[in-house]
């Protein structure tokens, strides 16, 4: 088990290094003069040069690369070019905000989608199944910024049940924060509903057709006993995988939703950093998202191992 974890962590480190390198390469090949970018077109050339020197942009590329790697592996990304604030003070609060939104979206979507998937599977090809499948198709094919805009105009503008600017004020209580967050979270939840529900449905249907489900039925178990004791465990593995991949995606922030609600999550932070060539912030944010991806897939693999003894025994070797 610990060997497995070590192996996974080892490969995670390599992946992060690759990610950091890609970010560095992309930023380096962009034709830009960072000093000029920061100081604006009217600053004297000497000041621009001085700033570039202070930031290290006049050094050989290899030195720049090593510096950048040091920043990555010490998790100290330096200071934002634009605000001068430490990068960590920018990205961690953004991460925290994204996390709250993503968590709420998951709480809203997971139970409903899994339940809908199970109902659809048990009533396969009947009216309720078709309704769920088609609803799922519809919701997952609407882009999230469209549904976000629609929900915003309905709930925040028309009925005034939510806030159009989703950033809660400092010191807001949890209930107050929920008031701010529930509409953007709903927009995210709707996008994932169809995906998760269809995934669950497919998993349950294939487990229902399995030989072991037949064995259980022939033992004289009722269909709900068969479902609870034999089908669920096997049917949910693909759904769990999907959820875990989505965690990383949601944390990365569904930029569309964040923009519509003016929410300053990780996605918005990255978008702004790209626009301003704020490399330290961009680098920090991208790596943070990468780390979250890494951990969410690891968590999913461990969960699947917990559900499936075959994988578990393989893992614990």
């Amino acid at each position, binding site marked *: 088990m610990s060997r497995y974890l070590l192996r996974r962590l080892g490969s995670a480190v390599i992946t992060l290094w690759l990610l950091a390198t890609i970010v560095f390469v992309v930023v380096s090949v962009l034709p830009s003069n960072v000093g000029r970018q920061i100081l604006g077109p009217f600053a004297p050339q000497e000041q621009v040069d001085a700033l570039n020197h202070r930031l290290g942009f006049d050094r050989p590329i290899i030195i720049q690369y090593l510096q950048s790697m040091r920043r990555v592996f010490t998790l100290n990304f330096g200071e934002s070019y634009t605000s001068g604030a430490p990068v960590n003070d920018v990205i961690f609060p953004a991460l925290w905000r994204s996390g709250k939104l993503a968590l709420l979206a998951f709480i809203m979507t997971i139970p409903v989608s899994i339940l809908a998937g199970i109902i659809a599977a048990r009533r*396969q090809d009947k009216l309720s199944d078709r309704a769920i499948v088609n609803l799922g198709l519809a919701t997952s094919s609407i882009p999230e910024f469209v549904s976000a805009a629609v929900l915003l105009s309905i709930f925040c503008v028309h009925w005034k049940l939510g806030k159009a600017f989703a950033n809660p004020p400092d010191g807001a209580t949890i209930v107050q924060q929920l008031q701010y967050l529930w509409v953007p979270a709903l927009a995210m939840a709707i996008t994932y509903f169809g995906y998760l529900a269809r995934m669950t449905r497919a998993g349950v249907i294939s487990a229902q057709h*399995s*030989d*072991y489900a*037949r*064995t*259980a*039925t*022939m*033992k*004289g*178990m*009722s269909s709900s006993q068969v479902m609870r*004791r*034999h089908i669920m*465990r*096997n049917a949910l593995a693909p759904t769990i995988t999907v959820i875990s991949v989505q965690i990383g995606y949601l944390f990365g922030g569904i930029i569309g939703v964040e923009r519509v609600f003016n929410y300053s999550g990780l996605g918005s932070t990255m978008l702004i950093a790209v626009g301003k060539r704020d490399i330290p912030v961009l680098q920090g944010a991208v790596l943070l998202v990468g780390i979250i991806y890494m951990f969410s897939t690891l968590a999913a693999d461990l969960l699947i191992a917990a*559900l*499936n*003894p*075959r994988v578990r*025994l393989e893992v614990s070797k």
Partner: protein
Amino acid sequence: MTITNPDNAVKAPASSALSVTDLEVVYNVRGIPREVLRGVSFHIAPGEAYGLVGESGCGKSTTAYAALRYLPRNGRIVGGTVSVDGQDVTAMSNERLREFRARDASMVYQDPALAMNPTLRVGRQLIESFTLLGQSKTDAEKSALDALRKVRIADPERVMDRFPFQLSGGMQQRVVIAMALACDPKLLVLDEPTTGLDATVEAEVLDLVRVLRQESDAAVLLIAHNLGIIRSLCDRVGVMYAGRIVEEGPSAEVFDSPQHPYTVGLLRALPRRGVRKTERALATIPGLLPLIGSPLPTCVFLDRCAIASELCHTTAPPLVAIGDGTGRFSRCHHVDRIGEIQETPVSVDIAMLNTSAKGADVLELTHVSKTFHQRNLAIPALVDVDLSLGEGETLGIVGESGSGKSTLAKTLLGIEAADEGGSVSLDGHFVAPLTTGRSADEKRSMQMIFQNPDSALNRSWTVRRILMRSVEKLTGIKGDEANTRVEALAAHLRLTPRHLDLKPRQLSGGLKQRVAIARAFAGDPRIVVCDEPTSALDVSVQAAILNLLADLQSEKKTSYVFISHDMGVVRYLADRIAVMYLGRIQELGPTDAVFNGPNHPYTEALLSAIPNVDGEERVRIRLDGEIPSPANPPSGCVFHPRCPRAMPGVCEVSEPPLREVEPGHLMRCHIPVEQLVEMQRTPTQG
């Protein structure tokens, strides 16, 4: 012969454990109900074993599942009754049906690995069977341990704690049987219980079922496509065709003197009584099984019957009793004319095959080994194999799973590279270990036919395109000329031009396999490796394919390496047989020598494990233990831990060499051949 009133024939004896009467089942296919069972009637007494046989699509599995009212979502019982121990299964409420399945009826399935939940421990699944009967958790646990002991599982406590995938196939099936017997059922349905298991494991499971039958008075309904199993286990047998039972009677009588044209055809299609390709071709049944739901107003076998008369076209034959109350019935108007059924004339040129003097060796394997590496673990899958194959010769390869049969095939074809030190030579010159290093001509010369034509053929291509590509790739011929060649090839394989423009899924299993064979023969190969080419096919289709292979061989002098688990098939087609165990050739010799003995003790056990449709039972040699892992082979002779004739102090010390015991007959055994002859003298019972 007396013909009694047909109505009496199917009357249920008062004491039936299972009584199926005029059962009709339909499957809804695209909204249209299609008849699958067209009035099936049979009865099984308590303690009796009844077999249902017939080719796929005849309705035997549907009958078995209908007996427990477990039909697919689109299936429906539309007529007739099923009663078990006097209770009408068709009329039960859902609650009652659950109770019935828990207490009165059980089932054992084809694939034990899939029949158990892979994520739950064996113990939990077994205990569940008892708690469903109302036992408390602790009682159920005790019962579960007892149940495992009853199915002769050593160390039941440990097995309870395992997951299904940690058990061997034979153990898995024992556990499933233990679950089925939990409630001491009135009716036990066995659906292909040993299909997919190795021969020696199959024999063990069948032995167990035989013993358990003595201990219980459950009525047994056995579904099996292997007629030998039915004969060895069942008191009576029903032969099904197109949703009807066409013949019924005591198993031995039905198999020895069939009284319905279909049964006659089925039995003649089997390679039995040691028949060889040099003696006669196998009989085939002309035509195809009618599609499910086709209207068959009179005799269901009419279109394929050789003795059908005017009467058969107008009147459905009743099930009539034959003889004097021996319980034999046939659904045929012309039972008295059964003897007139001619063997299907076939075109195999037997004389051509009957050349005892084989041509020069086309293939030679010298010291070929293949070791796989997995996580620093060396797994020798093939160990020092020496083989030669003459022109026009068939070498049969037999052995259980893990014996290295497929690795041997892959290595000689160059899909896997042989280890350093071994060599493969074709027509006297060495070829590269991998296909990538072999010339186009060498590749053309060695081709393969796979077990499952479904996955071997590109589903989205037409037959013509599949064959065109093979012709172009293998011979370099292009365009119109290639097309002409494809058409000639197809005609040769008895595929009509119409078939060429169909896609594989539009063809039957037999036709698909013909296309796969045509593909292999596209470049006039010297050697064709056939990996279980007929094991997915029905008996009558298998016969046609075997005839075709023999035919092609006699004409083109092609050599075959023929891998199969079916000893009857190997005996029919092979000139020589190699018996493999744990990657080693244990015995190699002419087919007759291998079947007549003396044998390597492993071959002896293998041959004795095969249930025979002719009722000739060899003295059963039981093997203890499981096939060892190739990663960790036993010391000395790899077979010694399971060998009933092993000599302590010798066999575990050194591995015997493969030595010639009589001309052309080699064995890897320490026991002197004279002694083996002595030990194996007990004659086979006729």
